[in-house]
């Protein structure tokens, strides 16, 4: 386990690409040394994810970054976090990350990558879900999601402006949290697809990959991470999972997209000759009730869009020697179900010792079965999250309590005063998994 020693704060982390088995990392309060252990650093980004994993391989320490984004800041703003992160990996001059993983293209996972500073960071490989590739199916899904996000956002904005009551306006505004999460990420995605120091020379992998016969490869090994096996649990490529990635049912969504292009005004179904004054009593309450349905359930659609993008999320199990670290991104029911139905994956899940809590601690991003039945060991969990006014159930208290019972869990927005398992710094929380 890690020991805390008080020494004067160091200013620069050493980037060890050489042979040493130990890593020095700066924390706000001092330096910690770890021999022979995997370290996971959770940056406090607020509502978002940013995790730096350092593995002491036979060829020296290797770093994997899982996401970097936020939609609502933590104690520090995103810029500060990115600066800290780059410094932690040897920046500004010798910044190096061996693998950058982008689990899915939501703002709260990619926003940080829009900074220009990334152009100076040397990256070995970038891993993204297969929906980011050039395959026709991938392009189709991406475009469908993007189109819906844009048209839906425009529609919600209009509806909010025209809202009859503050409550209604609030409903539309909060639905925009979903659409905005899915839009405006172009610069960040550009960095991921074409940026960093090596630019297009850097290898991009779209997971899960296929071999030349088209068979899906559910494990990945790379020379950049000697001794590490990555198990790719998701996103699934099967039909049912793809259906989950499609924004709400074909026809309805199409209608929606069309109507918003034409200004979201309902077509006039009949010419003026047919219009008459009230000839029947329909109460005002009923009229208002009926009128509500004409907005095409935009708020519900927004939620479904969010879920569709989450459905593309990478779900990875990182194995090094006998240690298993589980990063499910924001995967939801469809991906989890497919993974748990796979016997091989299920067996691996039982061995998990570290778990990055899915989707900021929300209810159905961590199945009850996983927590109560699957996990065999004591586990260490980290949840990168914060409370959001409109979403009292993220993170779900019951889930956090349940996880705590099985080991230790920490929330990025509620660092513990004392802990044997977590090392708290300024805007960061570390944990070590001894080998």
């Amino acid at each position: 386990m890690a020991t805390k020693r008080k020494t004067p704060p160091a200013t620069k982390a050493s980037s060890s690409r050489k042979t040493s088995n130990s890593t020095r990392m700066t924390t706000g309060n001092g330096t910690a040394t770890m021999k022979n252990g995997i370290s996971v650093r959770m940056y406090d980004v607020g509502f978002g994810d940013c995790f730096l994993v350092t593995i002491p391989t036979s060829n020296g320490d290797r770093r994997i970054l899982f996401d970097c984004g936020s939609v609502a800041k933590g104690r520090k703003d995103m810029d500060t976090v990115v600066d800290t992160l780059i410094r932690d990996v040897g920046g500004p001059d010798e910044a190096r990350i061996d693998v950058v993983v982008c689990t899915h293209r939501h703002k709260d996972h990619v926003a940080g990558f829009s900074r220009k500073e990334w152009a100076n960071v040397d990256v070995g490989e970038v891993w993204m879900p297969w929906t980011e590739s050039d395959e026709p199916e991938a392009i189709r899904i991406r475009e469908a999601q993007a189109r819906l996000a844009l048209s839906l956002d425009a529609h919600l904005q209009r509806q909010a402006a025209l809202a009859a009551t503050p409550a209604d306006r609030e409903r539309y505004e909060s639905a925009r949290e979903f659409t905005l999460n899915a839009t405006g990420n172009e610069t960040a995605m550009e960095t991921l697809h074409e940026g960093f120091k090596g630019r297009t020379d850097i290898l991009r992998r779209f997971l899960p990959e296929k071999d030349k016969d088209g068979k899906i490869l559910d494990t990945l090994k790379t020379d950049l991470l000697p001794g590490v096996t990555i198990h790719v649990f998701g996103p699934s490529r099967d039909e049912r999972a793809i259906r989950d990635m499609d924004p709400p049912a074909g026809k309805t969504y199409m209608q929606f997209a069309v109507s918003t292009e034409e200004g979201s005004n309902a077509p006039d179904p009949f010419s003026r000759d047919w219009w008459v004054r009230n000839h029947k009593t329909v109460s005002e309450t009923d009229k208002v009730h009926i009128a509500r349905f004409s907005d095409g359930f935009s708020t519900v659609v927004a939620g479904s869009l969010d879920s569709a993008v989450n459905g593309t999320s990478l779900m990875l199990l990182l194995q090094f020697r006998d240690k298993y670290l589980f990063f499910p991104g924001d995967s939801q029911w469809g991906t989890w179900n497919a993974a748990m139905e796979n016997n091989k994956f299920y067996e691996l899940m039982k061995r998990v010792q570290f778990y990055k809590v899915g989707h900021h601690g929300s209810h159905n991003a961590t199945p009850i079965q996983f927590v109560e039945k699957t996990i065999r060991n004591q586990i260490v969990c980290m949840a990168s999250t914060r409370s959001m006014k409109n979403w009292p159930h993220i993170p779900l208290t019951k889930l956090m309590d349940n996880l705590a019972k099985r080991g230790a869990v920490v929330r990025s927005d509620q660092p513990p005063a004392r802990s044997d398992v977590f090392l708290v710094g300024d805007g960061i929380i570390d944990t070590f998994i001894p080998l």
Partner: protein
Amino acid sequence: MKATWYGHPSRRPLKIFASDPMAGRTSGNRVTIEINDEPLRPGPSGERLEVIDYDGAHRRFYKPVDLDERAILIQNGLDPSESDPRFHQQMVYAVAMKTLENFDNALGRPLSMKRHGRKLRLFPHALHGANAFYDPEIHAVLFGYFRADRTNPGPNLPGGNIFTCLSHDIIVHEMTHAIVHRLRRHFLEPSNRDVIAFHEGFADIVALLQHFSFTELLRDEIQKTRSDIRLPNHLVQMARQFGFATGTGQELRSALDKDPDPKLYNTVIEPHRRGSIMVAAVFDAFFNIYLRRIRDLIRIATGGTGELPAGDLHPDLVRRIADEASSTAQTLLTMCIRAFDYLPPVDITFGDYLRALVTADYELFPEDKLRRRSAMIEGFRLRGIYPANINSLAEEALLWEVPEGIPALPVNDRKIINWIVRSTEKVSRQAGRARKTTTNRYEESPEDTLAEETMLSKDALFFALGAWADANAPKLHLDRTRPLQVAGVHTVYRVAPDGSLLIELVAQFAQQNRDKVESLGGLPMRGGTTVVASLDGTVRYVVAKPLPSPRISRDKQKEAARREEEQMAYVATLDGRDVQLPYMSTKDMLERMRLRMNFASLHGGF
């Protein structure tokens, strides 16, 4: 004013679109259907339904049609037109009434559709959107309209208007939801995987079979469809040709196409897909019965060889086959609706429905001469739908429990006799026209009866029945220590083909347990029993869904415990899949199962 006695109620013919115009133009797209005549005010507004053309997207009304206007009357209604809103109103009224009549006839009594004193309302152009649904909150069916996609319009004019109210099948589907809700209020509460799926599947079955009962339409289609009329695919293709539209049309068609897979019933959760398993089962039965009925026609037409000639079929043959198909559809529709009286008051499963189908049909036709029941049982069996708590699929095992040693219903009570006599009046033809009666002509829903001015005999009836149920609670699998609600009682009149009259009394008793409301997402656990008795009070069947209670038999206790487990597991399953769940407010979280049950979002495809 002298009352004029015309004898039989007259019929009113009205033109409608036979095929869903959303599926494009097909020739012979018009059909004239007949419904019972009633005086109509502009709307049209009748005694049980009224059409109100209010457009919620534009907040305006459209001119209502007066179907009693002479010029319109003598032409069998307006000609089908997409641009004249009055035709839309006419079509919605006609098809909705036709659906209601099918239920009236099958159930042997006319249903009132009033709720809290309000008629059922239908809004043909209520909202902008590709959606149509029954809204229990305002007791209305709302139809949407929208523009065809410019780039992918399918068979429609790009950017042209599409009206869900012009689809026969959609109107029937939504009306069926409204009627089922009237017959079994608690079937909207999703207490197990089958409940909502049943609502959807049953609505599709009624729409499908009602559509197949249009003989003229079938004649055209049989001739046009190139595949062998003896293959199931033929009927499926016909359904496709009329552009059979359901909540999500795609699912139904593919359900009919595929070979039955019993695994699906165990894995599919989504209500439309699950419902279509049941539809496919009934469709199978339909096809098999139809095949048996045309066998002799084929023999005659081919002189025993069975080889049909290539090219067009003889028009006489086509007509006869069409007649067989449409009468099979009508008979099967009646059979499917009749089963309702034999359903438990709560927590329906597909297995319950199968048992109800078999029992109801057995009551009228003890010998299954036409092998309808065996076709149904087979259809369900092939899809892995097995009723709970039985040990064989033989017909006798599927009949509902015949109770032993239970005393008869207290029919000798004078109040009850009065009530039976009064309800007989309602069904008789003389009652409506010749004289005004003080009693409502239609059988009301239980809530409305109690809400309206008390007709003493009905109130007293409920009291007497409640007392009887209380006294016999154990045999009825009810829990005496819990409040008991008489959820409904009515007489049923049916005529068997041999001319014998079957009169039954059907009573529903319901209870609830609110102890675990939170873990059930805002729903109580419900239990209850439907009792079917003959006119002398002898109890013929007891259809029970017991609540967990130490006061019932050991077997029933196990059943009840299993039901409770399943209800909780279902809540958890839905939670796992609910994209809205993480973002719910605390208030919504507590009521989430209730919130999940609304046709609006279900039909919007979410």
